[in-house]
Structures are given as C-alpha cells and as structure tokens.
C-alpha cells in the first residue's frame, strides 16, 4: 500500500505528526494519548525495519526532501550504519513507551498528554539526527531532542530541576560547538550536505579552519554523549529524572551521539584524515580509558543503584569512543555492535530499575532488599542485563567486548585491553553487590498498614514486566545472532579504507 520509496520519511514523520495529533487529542480525551504514542512508535519501527531491509537487499537509500537535489535541498541517507541505529532507536523507544504507562500515571499524574507529546518529539529528534544527510538539519533535531530531554528530566524528583538546568547549560554549549563547527565547514566549503562536504573537504585537509571545525564538532558531540571529563551533567540528570524519561533517555541519547561522531568522522571527514592526518588517536584512547576507569570507579562509590547505572553509561561511552579510535575494522565493528548492545543493555537495566522504583518507591541500595523473593522475574531480567554489562556469554555484551578487545590487541593498545577487562571486573563487583543485597537481605519490615496492605512488594504489572522481559531476551538473542548482525549489516557499516 505504501510505496517503499517513502519509508525513510515515514520513520520520522509518523511520530512527528502523531505528536501534534496526540497533543490536540489530549486536550479532549487524555486516555487516548498513550495508544496514539504506541501506534506512532510502532509505525516508525515498522518503517525503520522496512528501510533496513531495503538497505540490505538493494543498497543505500537516498531520499530528497522537497524533491530538491542535494546539496541544495536536504537529503535523507540510510546506509547500513544508520539503518541499524534507526531500528534500535525505534524498538527501544517502543519498549520504553509500553513500559512507561504505569509509571507516568504514578509519577506525573495529569501530565500524560504533554509527556507523550514530548516523548514522541524526543524520539523524532533522535531519529532525525540519525537519518539525516545534512549537517545543519542534524543541529535542529539535536536541539529538539535536547529541549525535550531537559523538560522530561526536569519533571522528576526535586533535585532533577537543578540537574536539568546544568544539563541545559552544558548541552547548549555542546550543541553550539557543533553548530560552530558546521559553520567553519560551511565558510570553507559553502556546503552543508554531508556527502557534498566529503567530496570537497579532501582538498582542504591542510587547513587550520577545517581542523578547528573537526575539533569543535568532536567536542560538541562529546559533550552530548557525556564523554569523560565532559560527563558531569549526566549522572544527576538521569538519576533524578522520572522513571519513564530515564528509560528512554538513558539507552538512546549517548548512543545517538556516538553514532553522530562516527558519521562525522567517516562520512564527512575520512578515516585517512582522522587517523593519519591528525595524530590524536592515542590521546582519545587515553581519554576513553579515563572514561572507562573513572566511570567504573565512580559507579563503585554509589549507594544508589540508579545513579550507579548512570555512571556505567559514562564508562560504556568510553568503550564505544575508544573502539572507534582504535582505527581498525575490529574496533569499529565492536563499537558499532556495542551501540546496539548497549542500547538494549541499558534499556534492560533501566527498565528493571524503573520496575523496582515503581514497586519500592526509591532507588537506594536498601530498596533492593529481599527483591529476589518478591520480584523474581524482574530480578531475573536485571541479572541478565547485569551479565551482559559484565560481558558473560551468551549475552550481547560479551560479543561487543570481544571485538573491542580483539581490535585493541590488533592495534597494539594493551592499555585499552586492560581498561576493558578492569571495567568488566568492576561491573561484576558492582552488580553482584546489588544481587547479593536483593538475594540475601530480608526486606525491610513495613509497618504502616493503616492505609492498606503495603506489607509485601509484589511483582510488577504486566505492562512493565513484558517490555522488561522482552529487552532481557533480546540481549540473549542479540548475543547469539551477533555473528549474523556483523556479517549482514555491520561489516558494511565500517567505512572503507580501514
């Protein structure tokens, strides 16, 4: 019925239009908001899967918006890399949206229409950033996703407001740096289209302005992905955000930023420029090591499991950035695979954390006591997520770590190997500490039975449990089929010339 030629635009436009439709509907009938949001995300996911399928079978898709040829108009380009990322974003968002129902009802009563409209706009921002082939269009969507994220974070606990303000300041600096970097590219080339830029830039590789442009874009993107030491905004924002927000934002925002970095490094600039012309790979890898070690150690010092998870995000960003800057096929394969795996890993862990918060009301370690007995399915899913984070086969986390380690051995970066192994071990300590508390300690005795039976924490409602279990199973499926994933998709996503 729908022309497959139009899939690319549908990925973005279906949730985009639905956001406004939802917002209008919400003025009259609030209960319709959630179904509309789910339907929209389902449509986007279907279009994304369809596009990825087309990319695999027929090759890269170009889509001219407004019918204008690039570089005069804006162009959507879907190749293996962003086709995959699009599928990940839509699926994660769909799961997060299914999950969020009960927690939004509880934590944000009466704000459902606004919440879901912003939720969809955030997803649109992420999708648009991923799919676009235009450097400036990316900035606009970056701002959409950022503004929605500020708002969705700010409505959490008390501390979230200040955290969100800090995020806004730092995030604006990051986005502005990106914009300025694109401006430098524009002033030197006159173009904004990525492919066009890529064809013009090689003649200008000696230019100082181009070098500055690259640095500005890199720093801007690093800020957005919370790359150590620019990570300071992340832990508080993600910790105090409402459950439903953190389940969407935590798995996706940093990953999309990593994707943008890959896109900029390899599709606007070339591997030759990034790795050979600039001698900064060792520096970046050491920064990645600092991110991994620093993130792990900071996670170790937390007594709040949600905050602990946010520091692990910081560490995981180090994995991906380091992997890309290893500058070999294996490292980049590992980093791209890790984008996929980490999105689902983080989703699984945050959904589990969200379920626990929903049932116990807090995110301190003490809230975990006795949960293995009371919420066995939730804790099983949490354990699978934890194993993936540690890197135990056959969960997905093992395989990306495998490629990363192999890549760093091939590149001769043994310090990065050491950092990866160190982080695995720290993760093992971190998660087994949590599992121990929930397995061994008795649940706190609850007394206030005057208001009704609050004595036992029970398993979460189905709308929360199903997405959680799906994400956990996905981790294992992704692990088992990671070979397929690499040979069918990711190996084509690694830029030629590496």
């Amino acid at each position, binding site marked *: 019925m729908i022309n497959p030629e139009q899939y690319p635009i549908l990925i973005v436009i279906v949730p985009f239009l639905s956001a406004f439709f939802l917002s209008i509907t919400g003025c009259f009938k609030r209960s319709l908001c959630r179904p509309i949001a789910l339907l929209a995300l389902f449509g986007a996911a279907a279009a994304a899967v369809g596009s990825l399928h087309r990319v695999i079978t027929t090759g890269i898709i170009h889509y001219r918006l407004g019918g204008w040829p690039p570089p005069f108009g804006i162009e959507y380009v879907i190749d293996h890399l962003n086709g995959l990322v699009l599928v990940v974003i839509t699926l994660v968002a769909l799961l997060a949206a299914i999950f969020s129902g009960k927690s939004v009802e509880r934590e944000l009563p009466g704000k459902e229409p606004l919440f879901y409209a912003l939720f969809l706009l955030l997803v649109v921002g992420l999708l648009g950033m991923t799919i676009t082939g235009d450097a400036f269009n990316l900035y606009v969507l970056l701002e959409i996703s950022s503004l929605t994220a500020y708002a969705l974070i700010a409505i959490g606990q008390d501390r979230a407001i200040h955290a969100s303000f800090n995020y806004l300041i730092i995030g604006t600096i990051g986005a502005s740096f990106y914009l300025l970097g694109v401006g430098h590219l524009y002033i030197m080339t006159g173009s904004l289209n990525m492919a066009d830029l890529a064809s013009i830039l090689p003649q200008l590789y000696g230019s100082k302005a181009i070098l500055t442009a690259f640095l500005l874009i890199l720093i801007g993107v690093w800020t957005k992905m919370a790359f150590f030491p620019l990570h300071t905004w992340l832990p508080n924002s993600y910790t105090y955000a409402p459950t439903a927000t953190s389940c969407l934002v935590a798995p996706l925002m940093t990953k999309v930023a990593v994707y943008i970095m890959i896109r900029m490094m390899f599709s606007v600039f070339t591997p030759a420029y990034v790795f050979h012309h600039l001698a900064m790979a060792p520096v970046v890898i050491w920064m990645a090591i600092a991110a991994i070690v620093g993130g792990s150690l900071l996670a170790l010092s937390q007594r709040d499991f949600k905050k602990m998870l946010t520091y692990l995000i910081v560490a995981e960003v180090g994995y991906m950035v380091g992997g890309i800057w290893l500058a070999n096929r294996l490292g980049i394969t590992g980093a791209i695979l890790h984008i996929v795996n980490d999105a689902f890993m983080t989703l699984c862990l945050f959904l589990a954390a969200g379920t626990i918060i929903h049932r116990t009301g807090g995110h301190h370690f003490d809230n975990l006591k006795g949960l293995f007995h009371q919420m066995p399915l939730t804790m099983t899913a949490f354990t699978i997520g934890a194993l993936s984070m540690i*890197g135990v086969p056959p969960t997905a986390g093992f395989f990306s770590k495998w490629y990363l*380690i192999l890549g760093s*051995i091939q590149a001769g970066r043994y310090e990065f190997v050491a950092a990866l*192994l160190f982080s695995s*071990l720290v993760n*093992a300590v971190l998660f087994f500490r949590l599992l121990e508390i929930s*397995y*061994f300690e008795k649940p706190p005795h609850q007394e206030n039975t005057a208001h009704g039976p609050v004595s036992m924490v029970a398993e979460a409602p189905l709308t929360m449990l199903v997405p959680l279990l799906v994400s956990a199973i996905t981790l294992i499926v992704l692990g088992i*089929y990671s*070979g397929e994933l690499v040979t069918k998709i990711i190996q084509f996503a690694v830029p030629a010339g590496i």
Partner: protein
Amino acid sequence: MTDTVTSIIPLLAVLVSLAAVVPILLSRKRPNLREGWTFAAGLTKLGLVYAMVGPVLSGKVLTYRLVEVMPGISVAFRVDAMGLLFALVASILWLATTAYAIGYMRGLNEHSQTRFFSFFAVALSATIGVAFAANLFTLYLFYEMLSLATYPLVTHHQDQEARMSGRKYLTYILGTSIGLVLPAMIITYHLTGTLEFSPGGILAGHVSGPLLTMLILMFVLGFAKAAIMPMHGWLPAAMVAPTPVSALLHAVAVVKVGAFSIFRVMTGIFGTGFLLSQHQNQLIIILAAVTVITASLIALTQDGLKRRLAFSTIGQLSYIILGAALLSPKGMLGGLLHIAMHAFGKITLFFCAGAIFVATGKKNISEMAGIGRRMPITMIAFLIGAMSVIGLPPTGGFISKWYLVLGTLEADQPLMLAVLLGSSLLNAAYFMPVFYRAFFCPPEESGFADRFNEAPVWCVAPLVFSSLMSLGLFFYPQPFFNLARLAVQAFTG
C-alpha cells in the same frame, strides 16, 4: 583417521536438563512430580550420552554446529572420547545425586527446593556443554554458565556465611575467567584466527617464548575451578553449600570442569607435541605438584569433614593436571581415568558426610568417634571411597594412580613419582583415622548409642551405589579405560 558425523544428539544431551527447568518450575507445588521430572531428565540424558559411546568407541566423532556467533567462532559441539568420558561420569552421577538430594533436602526440610533443583539441572547442562564443547568459545560459554548457575546453589542457605562464601566463590571463579581466560582466549584467536580444538593443537608455530609461558599460566590459573594453588581458596569456602551440591559439583562437575578445561586447552589448543617441543610443561608440573602436597598437608589439619574432603579434592584435581602436564601417553591416560575414578570415590565420601549430617547433625571429625556402630553401611562406603581416593586396590582409584605413576616414569620425572607416592601416604593419613575412630574407638569415647540408625534410604542408596561403582571399576574399567585410551591416541597421533 576418525570420521566426523553430524549428529544432534550432543545438543540434545546438553539441552535436556536445561529444558527440564521449565517443568520443574511449573510443578513447584508438587514435589514428587518435580523430582520425577528431574529423574526423567537425568535418565534421558544418561541414555543420550550412552547412545554415543558405541559410535565414539568405533572411532567416530559426533559434531553439531549450532550457530556462528562471530567469524570463525561458533557455538558447536564435538563429541570425542575425552568429552564423552567426562559426560558419562557426570550423567551417571547426576542420577545418583538426584536421588541423594531428595533424601538430603527432604530430610533436612530445606527451603526453596524448587530453585535448588532448577539450578542443579542448569549446572548439569553446563557441565555436559563443557564436555562436548568443540571449541574454546563454547567451552568458555558453558564454563561461565556453570559458574553462575552454581552460585545460588552454593549460597543456598542465604545466611551471612553463605553470602561471604558466595562472594569468595564468584571472586575467584568469575574474576579469573574474565581476567585471565578471556584475554588468553582473545589472544589465541588473535594469533590463530580460530578457537577450534584440534588434536594437534592450534597454537603451534604462532607463539613462543615468554608469551607462550604467559598464555599457559593464564589458562592454567584462569580455570580456577581446577583449584590449582593459589586459586584454590574458593573450594573450602564453597563447602557451606548443601551436601548434594558439594558432592556433585565440588567433587565432580565444577572442579572436574576446571581440570577438564585445562586438559582440553593443553591438548586441543596448545597441543602436546608443541608443548613438549617448547619444554613448557615443567612449570605446570611444579604448580600441580606443589598443590598436591600442600593440599594434602592442609587436609590433615582440618577437623570439619567436608573441609577435609575439600582439601583432598584440591590435591586430587592436581593429579589430573599433573597427568596432563606430564605429556606422556600413560600419564595422560592416568589423568583422564582419574577424572572418572576420583569422581566415584569422592562423591561417595561426600554422600557419607552428608548422610552423617542428616542422621546426626555432626559436621566435625572429632565428634564422629564411634559412629560406625550406628551407621555401619555409611562408614563402610566411606572406607571404599577413601581407598579409591588413596589409590588402593581393589578400587578404581588404583588404576588411575597406577597409570599416573607409570606416566611419571615414562616422562622421566622421578621427583613426581615421589610426589605421587608421598601424597598417597598423606591421603591415607587423613582418611584412615576417620574410619578408624568410627569403628574402633573405645566405647566410652563414643558419642553414639550402638543402635543401628542410618540416614534415610534415599541418602544411603546412592552412596552404596557409588561405592559399589568404585569397587566395580577396579574389576571392569573397560568403558572408561577404552575411552581414555582412545582420547590419548587422538592427542598423540
């Protein structure tokens, strides 16, 4: 040459106990049905494993490739003589242990029995997976699965002591597998581009010198389940587990998986010829020998019966490693046989310790004076098990030790001969007093009435069975012996 046959049986053998978890969980309200499922799975598994004995003995190798997870790396199974030997031991003893566990758990009225039986089944699945692994990756996969599945079993009591032991257990097992085996495996893959076990090894010609030594050390110490010193600390700690767990896992499945993995890596990854030509086995021999003697000495000082058995296990495991490290055909034959013989002997001893605990609540040797008069069947089985572990005829342990001793001579390692013999004496020194005091202590020191009062029949029957197996294997070792000989032929070509 052996001919390779694709067969789904290995996969089924691995999966059958994993699949059993579902009915076990579903029938959690009805214990009899639940244990029925466990038995059914155990019998099926034994049947499947036994069905492969014939083909393997006739020189076939059964393989099954499940899925390729990374270029050149698959989850794949390959049943050869060595793996089948181990799988056979594990699946026979699973049945025995299931029976025993029913008696033990019900006798003590333990909590969370469903969880117990579920994870037990998972652990068995992982053990068979290790036995049939066709490559290092598959082996690692099931090795980790075993580590994690046994954690809830070790910490079954969920008290402070269990918590500390569980922590120690995971620190050793998971720490070494992530910190040592994983990088070693990746380096191997980096060097060779494959992880498939092959009879001649895959590393030959790819590595030498210090890196080789480092790889060997990473593998040998990394498979901490083999409890080579200094990686042995978890094993005595894990004795807080219920006795069926200690019996099957910490006498058979888990520890043997460690020893088996080292054996596999040395023969299938490094290759015996390559190791011999590089003279790299001496280091392992020394590590193993030190472990053998030290563990035996420590065992002498232990009063807790299970702790003494634990240290004895540490020592005996290093026999297997030693057998492998000798790299002589007879030594390796002895090592492989010891996997089986020690398993039957040691499980008997653990069953006995558990039976004593169920019947009397006693854990320490010093409290067991005169117990022989109350539990004669148990203590006679104990004697047979002890003899097998010491290596006295007419028990199976004699055969494996015999070949180990021959192996030391064949490999021209007289010092190791002394170690083996000395260790046997030490074994006798820490086992015989238990038996002696049980039967021959003066009546006034005995803490027990002369009344005959054994543990429940579900406890006693398995230990009688396993002790009879120990005896029987002396007279009829052929199934295991043939498999082991076939395996050694494969290594040495």
